[in-house]
Structure formats: structure tokens, C-alpha cells
């Protein structure tokens, strides 16, 4: 018995000493910066961490950084208010939902001169879909949703969402694991608007998604990237921003925007209504709009930047004029941006999605 004790005690002491050792090396410390802090809530891996350090150095404002995986996960956290965020980076329709729920603060653009100067006018125009007066949001990234396929596994030309229902690719298809994106595919395939609230149209889309389920290898969010690189699947639904990175890692991959049309999305910086550090938040957004910073972020995450000045700085011609990163949208039809459809429609979407998932 004694032995057991001595051994456990030794191990326990080891734990303690390891812990205290780390405390001594001091890789922690939560001291806020000399000019206060700013709490940022962003998508996972959605900016170059170096830019945060640069911001801290230049402004003396400490960045508290937190990440979310989907808009739907972000919303209840912001709504509950148990954690006070200053700056968030939601997508189009979620910004509208936040505005509708009176959770956002109007921005003072005098403090964000870089925004009006560098962001292209077309993106402000597009933002009016969800922020009609451009009062609340500053575009950060944009893109399309399309099909990524592996040329060695798919021999036919890919130009339609219908390939996701082709039994030849059973167990080789990766679908998006978020309500709106999944229904977008189902609705667009049938020629409906992806902002549909029509019960019959949604029912059709749901039935298509259920029919598709046996062919789907997995429902994923961003894992589609690793799985496509590793030749795990032949076809995946993916955000255009991931396309450049995946192609770089695996040259067999090709990205297309289907002919039925798709989602053109914008993720924008917004400031919450009860942000404890509103001034710092605006400084942060202004910093993110600086051309050199926007470029760093673009090169790190490869999601298209609406920052025209930053785009000018891209050295490689084929990336600056890449049809994937910066497509000429006038060539495509059926392009739409998500809108917030109200609580009842949200509930309907959620219920239908649950039906799909539990089949």
C-alpha cells in the first residue's frame, strides 16, 4: 500500500511543480494594455495572428481574441450578453438579425477613415442588402460558395449543383453542415430563391436533401479543406476562400460556381451595442482596413478581400486577377446574398434541417 502512495504522491508533486514551473516562466499574465483592451469575436483562423500583435504594439491596446465556428453559434452568445464582445465579424444575414435585435452600435466613420477610403464601392452597395444605410458594418471578406472537385476522380465537366445528387459519387460527397448553406444548395438546385420562406419550396428542398443523404460521406464545415486535400472525397461544397489554399496543396482540385447560381456572401466587422470599449473597437476596425494589414490577412487566410487598395498590392498577377478570388460577378446568374428571414422562418429552417439530419 505504501508504495502506491509514494508513487502517486511523487506524480502529484510532479504535476504541481510542472504547473508552477509554467507560472514562473510566465507565459500567461492577463494584464490589459496601457490603452485598455478590445474584445474581438471572429471566425476560427480568420486573420493573421501577427496583425493582432502589430495592432497591440502600435496602439497599446490589448486584444482579447475569441473564435466561433458558425454564425448560429455566435448569435446566442452575443444575445445572452454574458460575455461582452466589442467587435464581431458575422456574415450578411446574421448582421441583419443582430440589427433587428438591436444588438449593434452605429459606427462613427470619422474614426474609421480607412474603411471609406479603401473598400470598393461595389461592396458597400452589396452590404445594403442587410445594412441598408451602411451604418453598422465594414466589409472584411467576401466570396462565393461553390463546388470543389478532384479532377482525378471526376471526369465529366462540373457546372451544376445536380452533381451532388449523382449516385456515381456515393460516399464521395462532402456537404456543408450549416442550415442555411445546406438549404441554399437544395433551393438553388430547384431554381428557388435561397431566401425562400415558402413552406412548399422548403419542403421540396428538404426532400432533396434527404434524398441526397445516403450519398453524403460527411457533413462538415471547414474540414472539407483537409479532406479534399487528402483525396478523401471527390466533391465538396466549399467557400471560395478555401479554394486557393486547397489548390496550392493539391493541384488536382478545381473550383466552380454552379450555373444555377449561388450565395455571394460578405463577412463584415460590426460593433456591439453595449461594447465596453467602443473607441478601441473602431480603432481596431480602422487598423484592419489598412491596405498592408488587409493584404497580410488576405495572404494568410486566402479569403477575397473587399479592400481594393490591398488588392492592388498583391504581387502575383494570377492571384490579383484570379477568377476564383475576384470573380466577375456579372458573368453569373442566380447570385444572391442571404437575408435574415425572421424568427418563425429560422425555426422552420431549423426543424427541417433536424429532419434531414436525423433521417
Amino acid at each position, binding site marked *: 500500500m505504501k508504495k502506491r502512495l509514494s508513487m502517486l504522491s511523487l506524480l*502529484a508533486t510532479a504535476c504541481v511543480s510542472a504547473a508552477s514551473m*509554467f507560472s514562473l516562466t510566465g507565459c500567461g499574465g492577463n494584464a490589459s494594455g496601457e490603452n485598455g483592451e478590445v474584445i474581438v469575436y471572429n471566425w476560427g*483562423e480568420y486573420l493573421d495572428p501577427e496583425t493582432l*500583435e502589430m495592432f497591440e504594439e502600435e496602439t497599446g491596446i490589448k486584444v482579447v481574441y475569441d473564435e466561433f465556428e458558425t454564425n448560429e453559434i455566435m448569435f446566442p452568445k452575443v444575445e445572452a450578453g454574458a460575455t461582452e464582445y466589442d467587435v464581431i465579424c458575422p456574415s450578411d444575414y446574421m448582421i441583419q438579425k443582430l440589427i433587428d435585435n438591436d444588438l449593434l452600435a452605429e459606427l462613427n466613420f470619422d474614426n474609421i477613415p480607412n474603411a471609406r477610403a479603401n473598400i470598393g464601392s461595389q461592396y458597400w452597395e452589396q452590404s445594403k442588402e442587410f445594412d441598408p444605410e451602411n451604418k453598422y458594418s465594414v466589409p472584411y471578406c467576401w466570396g462565393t460558395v461553390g463546388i470543389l472537385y478532384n479532377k482525378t476522380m471526376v471526369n465529366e465537366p462540373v457546372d451544376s449543383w445536380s452533381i451532388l445528387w449523382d449516385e456515381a459519387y456515393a460516399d464521395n460527397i462532402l456537404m456543408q453542415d450549416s442550415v442555411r448553406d445546406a438549404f441554399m444548395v437544395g433551393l438553388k438546385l430547384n431554381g428557388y430563391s435561397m431566401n425562400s420562406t415558402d413552406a412548399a419550396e422548403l419542403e421540396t428542398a428538404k426532400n432533396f436533401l434527404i434524398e441526397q443523404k445516403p450519398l453524403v460521406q460527411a457533413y462538415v464545415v471547414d474540414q472539407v479543406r483537409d479532406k479534399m486535400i487528402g483525396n478523401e472525397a471527390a466533391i465538396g461544397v466549399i467557400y471560395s476562400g478555401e479554394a486557393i489554399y486547397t489548390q496550392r496543396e493539391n493541384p488536382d482540385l478545381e473550383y466552380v460556381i454552379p450555373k444555377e447560381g449561388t450565395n455571394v456572401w460578405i463577412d463584415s466587422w460590426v460593433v456591439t451595442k453595449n461594447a465596453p470599449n467602443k473607441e478601441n473597437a473602431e480603432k481596431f476596425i480602422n487598423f484592419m482596413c489598412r491596405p498592408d494589414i488587409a493584404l497580410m490577412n488576405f495572404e494568410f487566410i486566402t479569403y477575397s478581400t473587399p479592400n481594393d487598395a490591398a488588392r492592388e498590392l498583391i504581387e502575383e498577377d494570377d492571384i490579383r486577377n484570379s477568377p476564383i478570388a475576384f470573380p466577375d460577378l456579372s458573368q453569373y446568374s442566380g447570385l444572391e446574398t442571404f437575408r435574415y428571414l425572421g424568427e418563425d422562418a429560422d425555426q422552420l429552417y431549423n426543424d427541417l434541417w433536424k429532419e434531414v439530419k436525423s433521417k
Partner: protein
Amino acid sequence: MNHKTKRMPFKTTAQKIYIGLIFLFLYAPILTLIMLSFNASRTRAKWDGFSLKWYAALFDNREIMQALWNTLLIAFVASLAAVIIGTVACIAINRMGRKKRAVIMGITNIPMLNADIVTGISLMLLFISFGFKFGLGTILLSHITFCIPYVMLCVMPRIRQVDASVYEAAMDLGASPLRAFFKVVFPDILPGVLSGYLMAFTMSLDDFIITHFTKGAGVDTLSTKIYTEVKKGIKPEMYALSTIIFVTVLLLLFLVNRTPKEKN
């Protein structure tokens, strides 16, 4: 019938193979993770050759180091607090009547037997309803709560073995209750306290679900950090860090096990 002393020391090959297979099953994923930490490629989907670069990159990665720090701090403080609260509670409960004791132990076991998801949700609802600010504090409170039962599980049997009359004798001889406790009772229950501490430390370290529901902005433990990374593909630095932690503990374990032992 040939009966020697203890149970039959069967050590057939079949048994060894069986144990080997189980250990392969238990440790195969761990070997995989260790391999991945040496993979030169950023994605786990490709093997680009052997490299040590992630070990170098690890120490420059502020977010991971911060998460590691948080994890260790929470595990350390939570298990320490749980040990103190749990041990005191054990002493107190031991003095109670049978019925009372059964009721209290029943309540104590709830966080251990209940589903993590329910415990996490219930604490989240508590914190939100009573206006707690989510952060390091809420994680700590939750971890202490689910660590206490493990401590009590280890300490309770020890306390029961302590002869109450020795403690009373010490008091009769003029020792103050506190002194009597530390001189007489504490050495006897120390092993239980230590293994309780170790158990609580491990549980806190490995917890994801409860932290997931009770964490706040910018406060990540390794678990929650990994969960957000799952979607994007785990950063290889994370594999490197886990390998370091695992190997350290493994070495300690062997070292401790090899130290000379006194025979019974």
C-alpha cells in the same frame, strides 16, 4: 489439488497477446498523434517528411501557450480547491449519522454520475441567470464542482479507516483539535488526498464538455482551443504540445515506478 499461495500465475502467450492488442488499441491514436507532430506538412492529410519545425513554432505560438497556461492554472487551482473542500467535507460527513451521510454522498455523486452535457448546461444556466460574467472564474467554479466528487471518492475510504480514538487521545493529551488533526489524522489520509488531487487534476485537464458551456471570451483551455481548430484542421503545433505533455508524464511515471521500493 495443487494450491500454492495466491492466484494461479498463468502467463500464457494468449494472455500476453490479448493485453498487447488492448494496449495497441488504447495507444494507437496516441502514436498517430506523435507521428503527426513530426509531419512537415500543415495538413494532417499529407505526409511531407520528418520535421521538428512544429516544436520550434510551438513556443512562438502565443495562443497555444496561453491556452496551455490557462489549462494548467485551472487544473492546478481547481484540484487544489477541490481537495481542500472535499477533504474537510469528508471529515465532517464521517461524523454524521448514517442517513444524513447517505443523502449527502448521493448529492456529491451527482456531478460524477450525471452526464457532462447536463452538468455543463445546468452551470451555464446558473451563471447566466445570476449574472456571472463568463471567463476564467466561471470555468474554475465549474471545474471545482466536478472535481470534488473524485477527491471525496479517494479520501472517504481513508477517513473511515482512521481510528477516531487516536485523535481523541491526542486531544485528551492537550493537543488543540487542529494540531491533533494535522499530527494524527492527516498523515493517515494523506495518500487518499494525494490520489484525489491527481485524479482531480487529470479530470480537469481532460475536460472539454463542461468548459465548452461555461467559458467566456478569449479564455481558452487546450480542449476548447482544439475544438475550434477541429473545424479548420488542427494546427500541427498542437500535436507537438500534446506529445511533449504525454512524454513528460510517461517519463515521470517510469521514473517513479523504478525508484527502489521497500518490501512489505
